[in-house]
């Protein structure tokens, strides 16, 4: 790739990031509404954690339990925003009918999708951090032993796999502008059910545990919990990192391949 071509792709990348930032800015009131919704979900999970002691009668480490539930809720919120931005970017372009212009532009599809995902990761991590901070203050949680940098690192590394899945999810609005985005949420819920969102994977039936092994969310949850609850450093999380790298490589390339195939199909059948 020549220097000129690299500069071309870099400018295109930046254009996608700025475009998404401008869209978020323009719809800031709706962003606040959805942020409040995610916050309400996280607080609810916190109260479930707090209530366990009263209805079970058992003595539990409430701080630990709330944080455990909260991390599941944070990942749920993070994946929601990630998949939503990626899927809605295509859906948005369908509503505005700008998708033909974007597809006609001399920019690689990988650049297009990866930058949209890149923006979603940055925005998602920022949002997750604010939620963690807010809920911790709300429940007066002790985060002194938590390794927040390590948790953010896990989320960032894991995002490569999530991007791959996000690209597959982005195909759905391409196929169906009416229902595609909603189906993305079902896809996300299924992923998290298998990954131990509010529980350990070991409580799942055996066949579900096998599926959990190939879900990147399993490693994201485990890594985040070890960082926040046990204060583990990023370098000590190798058991979660290597599956991420492997799954990231597979899911990213197959996600891109699948998106291109479906884009071709949508063009051919005039769905796109």
């Amino acid at each position, binding site marked *: 790739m020549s220097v000129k071509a690299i500069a071309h792709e870099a400018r295109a990348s930046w254009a996608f990031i700025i475009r998404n930032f401008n869209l978020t800015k*323009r719809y800031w009131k709706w962003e606040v509404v959805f942020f409040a919704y995610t916050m309400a979900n996280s607080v609810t999970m916190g109260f479930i954690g707090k209530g366990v002691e009263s209805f079970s009668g058992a003595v539990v480490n409430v701080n630990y339990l709330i944080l455990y539930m909260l991390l599941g809720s944070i990942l749920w919120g993070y994946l929601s925003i990630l998949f939503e931005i990626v899927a809605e970017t295509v859906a948005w372009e369908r509503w505005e009918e700008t998708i033909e212009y974007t597809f006609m532009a001399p920019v690689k599809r990988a650049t297009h999708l990866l930058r949209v995902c890149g923006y979603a990761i940055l925005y998602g991590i920022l949002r997750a951090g604010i939620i963690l901070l807010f809920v911790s203050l709300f429940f007066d949680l002790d985060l002194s032993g938590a390794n927040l940098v390590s948790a953010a690192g896990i989320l960032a590394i894991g995002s490569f796999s999530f991007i791959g899945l996000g690209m597959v999810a982005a195909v759905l609005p391409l196929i169906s502008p009416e229902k595609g985005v909603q189906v993305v949420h079902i896809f996300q819920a299924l992923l998290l059910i298998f990954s131990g969102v509010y529980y350990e994977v070991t409580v799942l039936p055996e066949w579900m545990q096998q599926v959990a092994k190939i879900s990147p969310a399993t490693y994201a949850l485990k890594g985040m919990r070890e960082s926040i609850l046990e204060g583990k450093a990023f370098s000590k999380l190798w058991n979660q990192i290597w599956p991420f790298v492997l799954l990231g490589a597979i899911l990213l390339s197959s996600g891109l391949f699948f998106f291109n195939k479906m884009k071709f199909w949508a063009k051919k059948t005039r769905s796109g």
Partner: protein
Amino acid sequence: MKVLGYDIVKDVSLVKRLINRVSVEASFFRKLSATENLLFAAGIHGISRKEALAKIHDLVEKVGLDKKQLNDPLEGFSRGMQQKVDIARAFMTTPKIMLLDEPTTGLDPRAKRDVQRLIHEMKNKMNTTVLLTTHDMGEAEKLCDHVSIIHQGRIVVEGTPRDLNLKVSEKVRNPTFEDVFMEYTGVSFDEAEFREVETA
């Protein structure tokens, strides 16, 4: 198939750099401003922000847009104004080939005249080959150097507007370009419309 010597499959990226388009409905991110939309379009065509801003400044004057409005969301613009921004967006990439798909359909007479003048000026100033599709025969005669009339999926006649008018003038006295269309398609407008509805 090749476009200006480039294979449309093998050299797809190069071909994309040579082409831009304006469609019947100007499509934008309507919540974003004209500048934000134009900068995005420039960016995905690999144009730097500095160069894009200079081009926007230049094109905005050419297309007759009010600079003060450039930072307002496009959803507040009239259709004619949106079409002008669309034309500015398309010419910003200095394409070798410009595809115009019924660019003045649905515009009021003043906006239509403005857009036609703009297309004419841009075509000459930027040395761009413009491929215009239209049902407006007056527009075809006014803007095109070479016209192909397509009927039932086939080109039935082609030539300069003057030549086509001359050919038909042997049968029709002082023909308009609509008369030229009637002559070569062999049907009246009403019949043509009826057939179109029937086959849709």
